């Protein structure tokens, strides 16, 4: 009986496999068939024969920035926006918006294989991923640009900075990310190694949940809901001491949330100076002469903006006790749970978090954190901050935007939703023999230009394993760096810098009011599966993120956080 059942079961499985095998090619073949003639007849009548896809929102009421994405012809994509967006090129260049072949996306259903085997246009393609061990890439020989320096690129990872340095010193890896701040001198003194500082395009801040009803303060009001308390804390923490003692060289005290290298980053009044007496007086005035008890949450994860989380947290704890008699209980949380709790406004008290630039624009700093669409990380929003940011984001030139960002920075200083602490310098280290070694302020080091002459394999060791390789649905820098070796977006950032440069789009132009952006695709670009890049690949890759009703809108968790963070609501988003 049992045997019969298992035979039956395997038959059913076989049948379904057969069905799937027969069923799958039909949808993928169909577009290929229509495209094939178009491609061959391209020189004469290409536009007429090309069936371009178009995804369009019925109106702009749904709350997002996109109005439509359209494949005008085989090599032209037009994006229409609901509101002017001067930062659009910087945003669309981000690695979450990388292009993959339409056929491949459809055959994977938007998840599954896609998470481990991305098919991109980049200089490397994924060869194998042994989970927990290593990720191996090989050179893509049909790459449209300069071929990669190495035949094989290997990503490894280790959470302990001591371990990463040891591997570099012993020569088992060629480059490492984030050496420990105390090891900078060791690396610089070692003739076999080179240390490359990474410019500090990030910020570490002490966030407050200002919501009076936050969980955990059921019977008493949350003291942090009081603006004076937050101002007192802002004055009562010696940020210079933190940066001097616990940050590596190249770090600086943050006087604004946004680093000064970003246009309009440092406009308005600089942050409060350290003054323990004034702080204590203000806290007394706010009604807490004897201080109070609160919680400090953070994740024990090393990032460029926070090289030593435990030590910094304990120093803040000691300072608040000494200067303001505020008792701080430290609670270390798991990284994912911490970010979720922060975003949904469930963290009580104080938290330590930071932000590294994804693209060099104020919308990525102030807009993302304090704008109307920002998360509940800091509790209730402040109307004067959000309105200034909304107005600023829609203006084209930096000069026009300046007064609004000045107003926003001043309002942030007054309300203190958080205390900017430091722009943390970090570094990468390579063997001295490595050519093309560089560090990127955006954290996207490009290993197609980095290698050792006469050596086929280049091994890179970073902080952690990628979560998945479908970066439309990842926010973790360790995943993004791996994706960036394989997949490319319409635009990109210069190697080791932040300037936007054309990648898959050879050129692009906006209309006068910055709501229509036309991208002209590079011709003859091949994907790793041998297919050619065309406009429908672009439309499919982007629309599946935008359109929550798309059958391909699955990804790893389905959150597509960068899309919603940069472009607002999803199309057809399910009602909450």
């Amino acid at each position, binding site marked *: 009986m049992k045997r019969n059942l298992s035979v039956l079961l395997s038959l059913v499985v076989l049948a379904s496999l057969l069905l799937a095998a027969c069923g799958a090619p039909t949808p993928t073949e169909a577009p290929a068939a229509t495209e094939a003639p178009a491609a061959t007849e391209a020189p004469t009548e290409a536009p007429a024969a090309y069936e371009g896809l178009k995804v369009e929102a019925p109106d702009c009421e749904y709350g997002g920035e996109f109005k439509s994405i359209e494949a005008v012809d085989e090599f032209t994509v037009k994006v229409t926006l609901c509101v002017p967006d001067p930062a659009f090129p910087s945003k669309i260049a981000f690695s979450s918006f990388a292009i993959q072949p339409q056929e491949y996306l459809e055959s994977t259903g938007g998840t599954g294989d896609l998470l481990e085997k991305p098919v991109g246009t980049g200089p490397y393609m994924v060869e194998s991923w042994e989970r927990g061990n290593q990720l191996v890439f090989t050179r893509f020989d049909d790459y449209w640009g300069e071929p990669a320096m190495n035949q094989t690129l290997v990503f490894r990872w280790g959470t302990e900075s*001591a371990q990463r340095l040891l591997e570099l010193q012993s020569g088992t890896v060629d480059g490492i990310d984030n050496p420990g701040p105390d090891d900078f001198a060791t690396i610089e003194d070692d003739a076999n190694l080179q240390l490359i500082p990474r410019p500090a395009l990030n910020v570490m801040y002490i966030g407050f949940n200002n919501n009076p009803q936050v969980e955990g303060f059921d019977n008493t009001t949350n003291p942090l809901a009081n603006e004076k308390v937050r101002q007192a804390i802002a004055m009562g923490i010696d940020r210079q001491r933190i940066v001097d*003692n616990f940050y590596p060289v190249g770090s600086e005290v943050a006087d604004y949330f946004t680093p000064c290298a970003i246009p309009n980053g440092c406009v308005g009044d600089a942050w409060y100076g350290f003054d323990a007496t004034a702080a204590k007086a203000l806290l007394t005035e706010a009604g807490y002469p004897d201080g109070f008890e609160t919680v400090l949450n953070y994740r*024990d994860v090393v990032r460029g903006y926070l090289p030593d989380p*435990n*030590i910094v*947290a304990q*120093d803040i704890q*000691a300072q608040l006790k000494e200067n303001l008699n505020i008792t701080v209980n430290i*609670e*270390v949380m798991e990284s994912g749970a911490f970010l979720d709790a922060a975003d949904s406004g469930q963290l009580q008290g104080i938290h330590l978090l930071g932000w590294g630039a994804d693209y060099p624009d104020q919308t990525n700093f102030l807009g993302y954190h304090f704008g109307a669409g920002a998360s509940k990380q800091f509790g209730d929003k402040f109307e004067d901050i959000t309105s200034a940011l909304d107005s600023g984001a829609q203006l084209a030139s930096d000069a026009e935007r300046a007064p609004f960002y000045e107003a926003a920075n001043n309002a942030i200083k007054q309300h203190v939703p958080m205390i900017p602490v430091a722009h943390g310098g970090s570094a990468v280290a390579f063997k001295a023999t490595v050519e093309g070694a560089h560090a990127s302020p955006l954290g996207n080091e490009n290993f197609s230009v980095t290698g050792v002459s006469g050596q086929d394999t280049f091994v890179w060791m970073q902080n952690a394993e990628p979560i998945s390789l479908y970066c439309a649905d990842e926010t973790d820098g360790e995943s993004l760096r791996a994706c960036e070796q394989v997949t490319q977006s319409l635009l990109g950032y210069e190697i080791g810098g932040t300037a936007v440069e054309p990648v898959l789009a050879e050129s692009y132009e906006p209309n006068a009011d910055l709501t229509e952006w036309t991208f002209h695709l590079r011709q003859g670009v091949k994907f790793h599966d041998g297919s050619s890049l065309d406009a429908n690949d672009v439309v499919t890759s982007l629309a599946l993120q935008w359109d929550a009703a798309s059958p391909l809108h699955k990804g790893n968790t389905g959150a597509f956080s960068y899309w919603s963070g940069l472009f607002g609501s999803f199309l057809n988003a399910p009602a909450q």
Partner: protein
Amino acid sequence: MITDTSKIAQLDSEGLSLRSVSLWQITWRRLFRRKSAVVGMVILGILILIALTAQWLAPYDPLQPLIGIEQISKRANPCIHLLGCPASEPQHIMGTDGNVRDEFSRLLYGARLSLMIGLTTVSFAIIIGTVLGALSGYFGGWVDNLIMRVMDVLLAFPSLLLAIAIVTVLGPGLQNALLAIGIVSIPTYARVVRASVLSVREMDFVSATRAMGGNTIQILFRRILPNALTPLIVQGTLGIATAILDAAALSFLGLGAQPPTPEWGSMLGAERNQVFTAPHLVFYPGFAIMLTVLSFNLLGDGLRDALDPRLAHIS
């Protein structure tokens, strides 16, 4: 074994009593004859002394970062004036930690915490374990089955893993870590007590008490348990060592004592990345844990031998 004091007094007065030597006196004598046990006791004695007098011994406040107070950098190397460290530099026998706190002071206060952890968790586990084991051994039947199967389930998990699971549910913190370690060590004591109760239960003096109409509680707590105590003492002493190790492991993982508490495990964990740049910050707490655990293990081994009646002829 159990002697009624009034009876002895009576016998004494009649001049009939032999010079009685109690079990504890014998044990004590045997214990002192074992070198390893003496070493264990000496180390333990010093540790207890340090724990009791930490506030007078420690040159600095263990929680006070010395930034701005002294010219000293974080993770400074040990500086001992007697060993040639220039007098212009402040003396830190074991250097400073990542937050520029005096490592030596923290280590001294850590002794207090570690001994407290060992004693409280084991006392907790012994109390609960003894009650469960005694009930189980005395009543037998379904009570025995129920309690022992639950204990088997607890024993089936690796103890540290179970402790981590419990702390994850309760939330990190020293108290919760103590509770977790206490809970995972219950089964050992329950089993030890149950085994002794089973053997003592059938002895003649117990039957005698029962025949004379002693009630259950009387029999269990006045007759059986005192006679089942010996293995428990040995197990408890060794258990303290395990508990200290477990607590250090939990704190190392960030689940036990929360900063800035000077707990050895968390001190070790906090500086694990500095093992090459500032090895003293990893060495001293690690050495302290080792020494404490060693002392309890030596003492426990000594006690076991001393209490073992089969080795009586050796004395």
